[in-house]
């Protein structure tokens, strides 16, 4: 391989139909989820997804800051997505930018549609997502981490919120793009699913695909979300395992 120049497009799909990291088109990257990693937060989770490393912390329901955002009939959900300066190869300029504002907004709105915010009027549920290492799909990894953190914080909600991106790579629809596929692929379509109802509460798209490809991508994404959902449930069960009655004293 050697050093791949910015303009040189790597071969994204082998003749056997395998991707640059050896995955099949419908295969996820490995995911590791740890719940309750932070002590000070009401809920937290650390997600390693492929080469992504994302931390999420949830505080609340608590007093609203700034006060004027307070709503009399429900909790406000405030989401802040941030990427560390060291998360990518070239230093990312730290702090708020258009990209992180957009991601904060769409993730916050996704959670607004699953959290029972009316249970805690005049309060705020604050979600912090910190991307420590990025390799495409950080908004999905952040969403999964935040969803786990919300469950860990005891926030009432319709369901956990698995998320994944589907893309178009070398003319084929592929699940869970990694960085090179995202950079040199033709399209990227992140989505978040409410498994209980089958609704999608986040969907964005960059690039081009045909109507047929879009339908295929949505199917693949939903299937991917369901796979992630199982991993999320397993991680929560491990954290909250009800010990055997009569265990070691």
């Amino acid at each position: 391989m050697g050093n791949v120049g910015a303009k040189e497009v790597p071969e994204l799909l082998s003749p056997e139909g395998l991707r640059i990291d050896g995955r099949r088109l419908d295969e996820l990257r490995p995911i590791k989820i740890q719940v309750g990693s932070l002590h000070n937060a009401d809920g937290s989770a650390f997600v390693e997804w492929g080469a992504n490393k994302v931390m999420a912390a949830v505080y609340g329901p608590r007093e609203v800051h700034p006060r004027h955002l307070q709503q009399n009939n429900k909790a406000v959900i405030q989401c802040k997505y941030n990427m560390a300066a060291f998360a990518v190869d070239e230093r990312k300029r730290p702090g708020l930018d258009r990209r992180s504002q957009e991601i904060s907004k769409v993730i916050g709105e996704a959670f607004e549609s699953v959290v029972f915010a009316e249970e805690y009027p005049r309060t705020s549920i604050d979600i912090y997502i910190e991307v420590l290492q990025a390799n495409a799909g950080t908004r999905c990894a952040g969403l999964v981490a935040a969803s786990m953190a919300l469950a860990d914080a005891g926030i009432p909600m319709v369901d956990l919120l698995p998320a994944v991106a589907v893309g178009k790579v070398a003319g084929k629809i592929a699940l869970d793009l990694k960085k090179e596929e995202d950079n040199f692929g033709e399209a990227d379509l992140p989505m978040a699913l409410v498994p209980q109802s089958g609704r999608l509460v986040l969907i964005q798209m960059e690039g081009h695909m045909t109507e047929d490809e879009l339908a295929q991508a949505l199917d693949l994404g939903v299937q991917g979300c369901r796979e992630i959902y199982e991993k999320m449930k397993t991680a929560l069960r491990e954290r909250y395992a009800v010990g055997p009655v009569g265990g070691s004293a």
Partner: protein
Amino acid sequence: MSRGHRPGHRGRGHEGHPSSPSGERTLVLPGEEIRAHGLKPGPGTYRTGGKVYASVLGLLSERGPVVSVIPLSGRYIPKPQDTVIGTVTDVQGTFWLLDIGAPRWAPLHMTGTPWKVEVGETDRFLRVGDAVVVQVENLDATGRIGVTMNGEGLGKLDGGTIVRISPARVPRVVGRNGSMIATIRRHTDAEIVVGQNGRVWVGGSPEAIHRVREVLRIIEENAQRSGLTERVESYLLATTPTGLRGPELPPSEHAHRDLPPRTLEPAESDEEALEAEEESSDRETTDQP
């Protein structure tokens, strides 16, 4: 979509037993379907499309006609009559705002104290950062929490330190009929006040505070296991202060407190009832101090 119950109104003192006959405790996650077989959806659940689902992470509980989920995590949800420990976050002319670990700050009005407070002189009595023991008096529909400092065992806390534990673990720290807390008190010279909100005030020598902190950590980490009292007792016996550190000072020299010793009522949360079952093995050894 309709919620079964209003939040924050986990009814007090449902007596009775979890109707799961085997005493089995089922962990459920948000979005998981609950086999309600005709039972009414209660707190921690929601109903949609004729099916009942869990809305929070917790243990499934069936009491009478209601199926609910008892949360295993999350902030303290206040209940009237709860004794809680708070810290002052704001001082106003006629009241203080207390952080009791609940979703909202709780106003403590100057008339709710045993002191004669003049308007505008509130900061002569309590300042930001001070710790107090108060009782939850009432809750309104907007989630506003009314607290009072009038009552036995309530007042300002001087010295000592506050240890935070999960509110869901408070029944374990108190133990059946206060057995666990009695064990800790018997083996340490610390003064301990357990708030239902998961804040534990500990006063006494630095060593005593350290040991109580350690015990609380042991309880939190092993809350789901049985034989907890034995585990705690063996820790306390293994760390009993020896003569090496010189004579022990009585707690009063360290904790400058003007309050009478507190008596704790046994915890009465939903979880206590559940956990009482598995605690039966603890009972014989700890009921008599």
